[in-house]
């Protein structure tokens, strides 16, 4: 039994990497993940990744921010201590607009970004689970789980045919823990 845990196809060109994905998919070989130094447009459709739902989260956080600050304004200006400014109504909505607007933005930005960090497991101090150190530099990596996907030689050939500059048979999943 081979000790290989992951097969990595390393490409130096994103178009070749897309070809590599096609080659693997045509042969029904599941792809574990793809690591790239920059966003690759059109890859989500190919890999069948659904649209991100972070936009909905952003909207909800925006509504929350608006409600929170509007409530604070209403409580302080109207309920708790209505100020008499020349006999004008204390519930003066135009005055509430700048504050409500700012906190809508504030809650949207932070709520959405924190949701993003949580869903993608990003936080300060998290050990980077890197499969190939050049994936953040100049290599476009397709990772295939070696377990169950045999024979490994065929996978290597499919990646090579697409133009992989190197195919690695790694015995460890992550290289970044040493």
């Amino acid at each position: 039994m081979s000790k290989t845990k992951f097969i990595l196809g390393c490409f130096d060109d994103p178009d070749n990497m897309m070809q590599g994905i096609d080659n693997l998919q045509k042969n029904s070989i599941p792809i574990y993940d793809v690591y790239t130094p920059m966003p690759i447009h059109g890859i989500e459709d190919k890999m069948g990744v659904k649209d991100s739902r972070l936009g909905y989260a952003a909207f909800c956080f925006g509504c929350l921010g608006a409600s929170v600050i509007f409530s604070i304004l209403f409580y302080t200006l109207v309920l708790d201590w209505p100020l008499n400014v020349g006999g004008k109504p204390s519930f003066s909505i135009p005055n509430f607009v700048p504050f409500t607007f700012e906190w809508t933005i504030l809650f949207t930005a932070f709520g959405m970004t924190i949701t993003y960090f949580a869903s993608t497991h990003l936080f300060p101090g998290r050990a980077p689970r890197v499969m190939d150190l050049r994936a953040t530099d100049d290599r476009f990596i397709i990772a295939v789980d070696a377990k169950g996907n045999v024979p490994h030689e065929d996978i290597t050939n499919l990646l090579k045919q697409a133009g992989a500059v190197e195919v690695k048979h790694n015995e460890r999943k992550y290289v970044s823990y040493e």
Partner: protein
Amino acid sequence: MSHHHESIIREPLMTGKDITYAQITNDILLPVENKPNKAWWIGFTVSSLGALLWVVSISYTFWFGLGAWGLNKTVGWAWDITGFVWWVGIGHAGTLISAVLLIFRQNWRNSINRSAEAMTIFAVICAATYIVAHMGRPWLAYFTLPLPNQYGSLWVNWNSALMMDVFAISTYFSVSLLFWYTGLLPDIASIRDRATGLRRRIYSILSFGWTGSLKTWQRFETVSLILAGISTPLVLSVHTIVSFDFATSLEPGWHTTIFPPYFVAGAIFSGFAMVQTLLLVTRKVLGLENYITMFHIESMNKIIMLTGSIVGVAYITEFFIAWYSQVEYEQYAFINRATGPYWWAYWSMMSCNVISPQLFWSKKLRTSIKFSWFLSIIVNIGMWFERFVIIVTSLHRDYIPSSWAMFYPTWVDVSVFIGSIGLFFTMFLLFIRVLPSVAIAEVKLLLKTSSEQSKKKLIEEGHLDPVEVQYYKESLTKYDSIDMADYEKV
């Protein structure tokens, strides 16, 4: 195909021969991974001395109180608020580049957004120091927050534009910081994966464990787009609210509805000037000529020209409305600005902000690096004078002639201002040493579509309209980083 070729008639956004993805990383990380050069040390020494001056003068202000400044009973607001508005305005260009240009899919933002956003953050920090300093007793800064006080629940004055400022500036700063840092994560990961030892540990913590996996990037792009979408109205709201500080008062010369758009245009104007001031030097010192090209410089100069013209129209509109309103006080405020004791400040503002940007109609001038840098300094000076004129000339001759006065800055006023410039440059110089000054991942996106080499390859393949190719070659002559000899045979 993930990469579509761009039309040949568009100018390249990246120049240089045989550039690879690895070379982009190497070029941009050069200043981060190596010892700084002499130019950096000279700049850093001078700026830190400036920052030191700031520490001394701010400490002096806190120790002795606001009496250390040249304020008097008539001119109760002068250099502090001038400095505040100047710095906030400068910050606006960063958000404009990172957010507005992203929404409009202007790919030339990719190589300048990182340092422009950093500039935003440092400029807003400088602006915030003025707010805290002019409180006199900064340990009571929490009075601006809506907290119930010990005498009963008398809340903060929500009707005041200054209160709106607290919310606008704090939101602007924190959202800008978030946007900037989220964009930095992939680039910090690039540094991490090339570093060893302690450096690797530090950048590992800072990178939040970024790997560049498929879903990370997909969500990253959603987050960037939404952050850009909300930052755009945010940046407009910030300077609108800053202008409310004046526009909601009853002071002649301040009480005008034109202030919000006029301030926003002025902010973008001064911000782009500061981006030019910084980037023209940075590209030379860090050797980034292939990434921050003549196209970027010219585009920014065009924005300076446009916003400068908007500001000019606003100045003239103010004058017209003062006459048209037939309000004597309003009319006097403007005649006093142009011909009173502060005429020199007014005409400095007019010549720096209205006349000088018009020189950019000349293509020769707007593609000259030396002239662009010189003019960016002129615009910075002019925009400082604009705020000084608005603030001091409106106040110094109020409704009662017996209380008319002049404003004379003390050494503390001057030192706080010069010191804040030192503080700004110290932060910027530290930034370019420890973090990539150009967004590496975003620049890599340009390599196969908008780079000079990819376009040259297309020309060599020879399926293009020769007229368009000729047009393209002519547009290349302005670049200082392209050797036209390469195109003679092509």
